Structures are given as structure tokens and as C-alpha cells.
């Protein structure tokens, strides 16, 4: 891409964007969304409306903000140092996501390996309760039939793993200047992502227990739910990247948006593998 002459004149200047309206719009969006959500939780009439409003503002903000970033990127305002900032930023963002999931995995581990045996020891309170996983807990008589790991979940593992492969293939295409491979790879990845989500929804529908069924239900749905949400987000981001590919935004040398989304996607992949092992198999 051709950099504007004025930029080239002081190429060592780190690009500082002009004042922007989007952050404050984003804050208003989150405030509205949060207020609406609380009202929904407490069955207040205005809740859904407020939430919708908040979501709409958030959407506008995201489009506006990322639009600005894309425009700046296309007009060549980002030098190598800015690019490095984006890379570092993404790395640390993913690290924060890792810690988020670590918290939930920690909860699962604690419930299974620490709390359960203490509950079984408390025979004075829960006579006859034994430490067996899965459990809905000593106070709820429900028996839990877990989801069979080697059915849909195993297939889903395959789906996500191959989506990782197609994405890498697309990246190859991008790096080697084969636009068709890039677009096809992206489209395939998105399709696999959608397939995964579809199957996950099906699995939820077919599961013999709900989120209310004790600690097993709670950890199962929160872990897989947050993962599914991340897949959804990843799919949306992939779609944006596909559209930008179609618009010819990326060059073999400069395509950080693609890389960022790919990192994110692989991260979501790895989380799934852990989920498959710790939630479904063990």
C-alpha cells in the first residue's frame, strides 16, 4: 500500500489518533446495557427496551470505532511500531481471556476435587451422600446423566480442529498472495464455526439436565456457554475479516486484523480441547 507523502516525511512519528467520540459512546452503551439488564433481572417493564437500546448504541460504537481504525490503517497511518503495539495488545488481551477461563476451570476443579469430598464427609448434615461425579449435590435428589463425550462433543472437537486447519490454510493463501485460497479458507472456517454452534445448541436442547441441576449443571453450562459465546464472537470477527478480504484490504505483508482474529480463534480452539477433556471426558 502506498503511504501518503506527508506520513513518509516523518515516518518516525507514532500515530496518535485525533479526539474521538466513540469511547464515550461506548461507555454510554455499557451503562445503558447494564441498567437494562438489571431491570430485566428484576422484571421491570423498561428493561428489554433499555437493553436493546444499549446493544444498538454498542453496535454503532463498534462499527464507528473499527471503521476509524480500518480507515487509518488503509491510509497508511500505522507504521511498524503501531503494528507492534497492536500485536502486543492482542497478546495481552488473549492472556486476560485465558485467566477468565482459568477461573472457571478452577471452580470446576475445586467443586470436583475439594468441595465434593468435604460434603461427603459431612454425614451429620447429608446422611448417605457419597462423593461421585457427576452430581447435582446432596440437597437435590436429581441424578445426572452427562452428555456422552464420544458423540456430538467428539465430532465438535473434530470440527473445531479442522477449522483451525482451514484458517491456517487461508493464512497461507494470504501470505503467498493467493486471494482465492484466502477467501475459501475463511469461508470454510466460518462454516465450521457455525456448524459447531449449531451442534452445541442441539446438544443443549437434548441434554438431560439444566443449569439449575446442582454444581454439575452449573459448571457445565457456564463453561461450555462462555466458550460457545467466544466461538460466536470469533465467527462474527471472521466474517468481518472475510468481508475485508473481499474488499481487498489485506496485503501479504500487512494484515494484522487477520492475524489477530486467527490468534483469537486458535485460543478458542485450545479452550475447547481443555473443555472436551475436563468437562466431557473425565
Amino acid at each position: 500500500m502506498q503511504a501518503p507523502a506527508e506520513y513518509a516525511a516523518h515516518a518516525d512519528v507514532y500515530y496518535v489518533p485525533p479526539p474521538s467520540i466513540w469511547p464515550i459512546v461506548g461507555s454510554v452503551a455499557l451503562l445503558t446495557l447494564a441498567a437494562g439488564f438489571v431491570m430485566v433481572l428484576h422484571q421491570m417493564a423498561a428493561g428489554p427496551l433499555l437493553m436493546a437500546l444499549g446493544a444498538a448504541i454498542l453496535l454503532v460504537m463498534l462499527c464507528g470505532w473499527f471503521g476509524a481504525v480500518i480507515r487509518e490503517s488503509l491510509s497508511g497511518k500505522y507504521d511498524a511500531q503501531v503494528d507492534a503495539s497492536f500485536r502486543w495488545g492482542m497478546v495481552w488481551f488473549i492472556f486476560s481471556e485465558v485467566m477468565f477461563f482459568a477461573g472457571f476451570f478452577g471452580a470446576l476443579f475445586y467443586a470436583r476435587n475439594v468441595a465434593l469430598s468435604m460434603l461427603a464427609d459431612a454425614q451429620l448434615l447429608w446422611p448417605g451422600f457419597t462423593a461421585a461425579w457427576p452430581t447435582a449435590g446432596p440437597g437435590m435428589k436429581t441424578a445426572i446423566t452427562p452428555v456422552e463425550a464420544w458423540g456430538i462433543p467428539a465430532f465438535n472437537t473434530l470440527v473445531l480442529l479442522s477449522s483451525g486447519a482451514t484458517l491456517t490454510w487461508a493464512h497461507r493463501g494470504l501470505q503467498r498472495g493467493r486471494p482465492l485460497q484466502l477467501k475459501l479458507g475463511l469461508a470454510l472456517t466460518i462454516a465450521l464455526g457455525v456448524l459447531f454452534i449449531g451442534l452445541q445448541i442441539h446438544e443443549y436442547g437434548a441434554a438431560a439436565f439444566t443449569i439449575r441441576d446442582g454444581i454439575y449443571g452449573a459448571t457445565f453450562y457456564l463453561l461450555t456457554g462462555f466458550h460457545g459465546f467466544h466461538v460466536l464472537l470469533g465467527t462474527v470477527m471472521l466474517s468481518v475479516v472475510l468481508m475485508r478480504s473481499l474488499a481487498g484490504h489485506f496485503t501479504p505483508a500487512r494484515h494484522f486484523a487477520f492475524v489477530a482474529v486467527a490468534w483469537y480463534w486458535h485460543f478458542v480452539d485450545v479452550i475447547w480441547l481443555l473443555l472436551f477433556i475436563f468437562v466431557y471426558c473425565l
Partner: protein
Amino acid sequence: MIEPKHIDRGVGPYFCAIRSLIALLAGALPASARAEFAVNLPAPASALAQQIFDLHTTILWVCLAILIVVFVPMAIALIRHRRAAGHPAAKFHDNLKVEIAWTLVPVLILIAMAWPATRLVASMKDTSKSDLTIKVTGHQWKWEYEYLGEDIRFISNTSTPTTQIDGGQSKGEHYLLEVDRPLVVPAGQKIRLVLTSSDVIHSWWIPAFGVKQDAIPGFIREAWFTVDKTGTYRGQCAELCGVGHGFMPVVVEVVGDGEFAAWKQQQKALVAAATAGATKTYALAELKALGEKVYGANCAACHQPTGMGIPGAFPALSGSKIATGDRSAHIDRVMNGKANTAMAAFGAQLSDLDLAAVITYERNSWNNATGDLVQPADIAAQRSGSAK
């Protein structure tokens, strides 16, 4: 077992100096009911508490010594190396030997501190070979004691009148640290506590015993103590547990063996009397009078003595649909509580008579005038009904 040592107030004299200093400072203030200025842990009554006391004293000395070693040089620097005194600045900014020294020496000090602490923790954890086991259940905001293997179970409520709290009446000696029925244990025996809770986390604490243990709903935790000296020991709940947290005292009476046996007999007689009372039929006035007491002890903290509750947090009972509507719905709410709210299931805590009385009271007080009577038998009927 560890033998109790004599009570050693190691840092006593120094604390005395501090104490008089502070007393001087406070001299300008109006004297209050009991000027104590206690500056140390309370006098230990158990071997464990004694060891904790000694450990704390030792650590305090160590810290004081380090404080002097660190801050005397600092003070010297601040006095001698002032610019105003014309001291020129040196240029050094490194010295490997010194730095290694002040890393290693603290390591050694810490190891020396950790050693006695480790031994003490191990003995605090050892609840084996106990003579008597008592189950302690925390409720918002009272303690329930059950002597396992004996037919004794009772609830220990604060007995400080609200009039003392809001200042209408002058405060008694054991203000906020007194209960209607203390826990009674024999002296010299190893008492094992198994603790749990019915609602939120509480913490059972008697400072003089060196025992503080959280009571966690749905789980059992253990603690133990042995106290040789008879007497009354006081503490309070030590984990924030809602609006009554400050009003949840723990009182233990340590008595001689003979006295303990007599006390047990008396408790059993009380249980028998209560069973008999549960089959009787009562008049409205009788029930209301008893109900008012039960209400004051169990319900008023939330629903307020006026029955008006605290809007948004605790509903008013005066004029409430439940307290003026269907009787069995009212009994059900009080007996079984409401999940995920502060309204506990009082069926497990109160006797049939108490329940009947408090419900009758609620239905015939403030703006409620249903004229309904609820008899202990009604409660019993609903209990067996809900059990099926």
C-alpha cells in the same frame, strides 16, 4: 497435650507505659462506663490461647527489634545527612554484600518465626480424643447448640434489651456480650465443636479460648478447647452475617463436673415440659404474650418491632397479604422460609409452641386483626403434612 503455662504478659510493663500515655491523652474526654484501655490479647483461658498469646508476644518483640535496626540508621541519616547541615551527597548506589546480607538475615528470622507457629497450628487442628462433642449451628443471628449423643438442644439468643442499644436505658455491664442461654461445658475436658450454619457464614469466637472458626452452611468444620478454670467467657460472631452481625454474642459457661451433670438433668426436664406444652390448647392472650417475646428475639431484627419491615429489604408484616391471608400459607412461610432470601426456615429452629405463638402474634398485632388463633397442634399437623 500441652500444659497451660502461667499467664505471661511479656510486654506488660511497656504496654503499661503506653496505657498511661493514652489515658493521659483521653483524660480530656468524659469518662465512659468502663475505662479499660486493654492493649493486648485478653487473658488466655486455654493452653492454646496461652500459646497464641506467647507467640504474639515473641513476634512483637522481633518486629520491634527489626524496627529499631532499620529506623535508627534512617533517623541518623535524616539528622546528620541533611543538606541544611551542609552534608554533600555521596554517589554510591550498589553494594552486593550488603544486599545479600539483608536478604539472607530476614530469611533466617522468618524461619525462626515459622517454627513455633507450625507446631501450634498442628495442635490446634487436632480434634481427636475429645470428651464431649457439641454441634454448633449459626443462624441469623443466634447460635444453636446440640450436645451430640445427649438429648439436649437449644438456641442461644442475645439478651441485651433493644432499649439499651438505642440509648433509652443505661447499658449493662455485659452490654452486647450476654445471652439468654449460654453454652455450658464441663471444666478440664476436651470439648470438640462441630460447626455449621443454616443460612450465611458466621464465625464462632471466644478470644480467651483461642478459638475462632467459621460456620459454613452445608459444611462441617471442627474446633476444640479445654478450659480448666470455671467461669463465664464471652465473645461474638466474627464474620459479617447481615444486619444482626453485631448482635450475635457467644457466651460459654465453664462449670465443675457436678454442676454440669445437674445442668444436664435440668435441660432434659425442660425438653419434657416443652413436649407436654405442645399438645395443650392456648388462649389468644397467652399466645400473643409468648409470641411477642419470640418475635422480639427472632423476627424483629428484620421485620422491625413495629412490624413495618425495612422497605425494599424486609417486607412489612403489618398489613402483609401473607400475615393477614390464608393461615396455612403464613405457617408455611415462617416454617419453611423462602429460598434465596434472608427469610429463613424457622421450622428447624423454633418449637411448635413458639411458632404457633409468633404466628398468632403476627396475625393479631399492628394493623393486623384477623382474630385467628394458631395452636401448636396446627403447626404439628402442617409439619407432618409437609413431611410426606
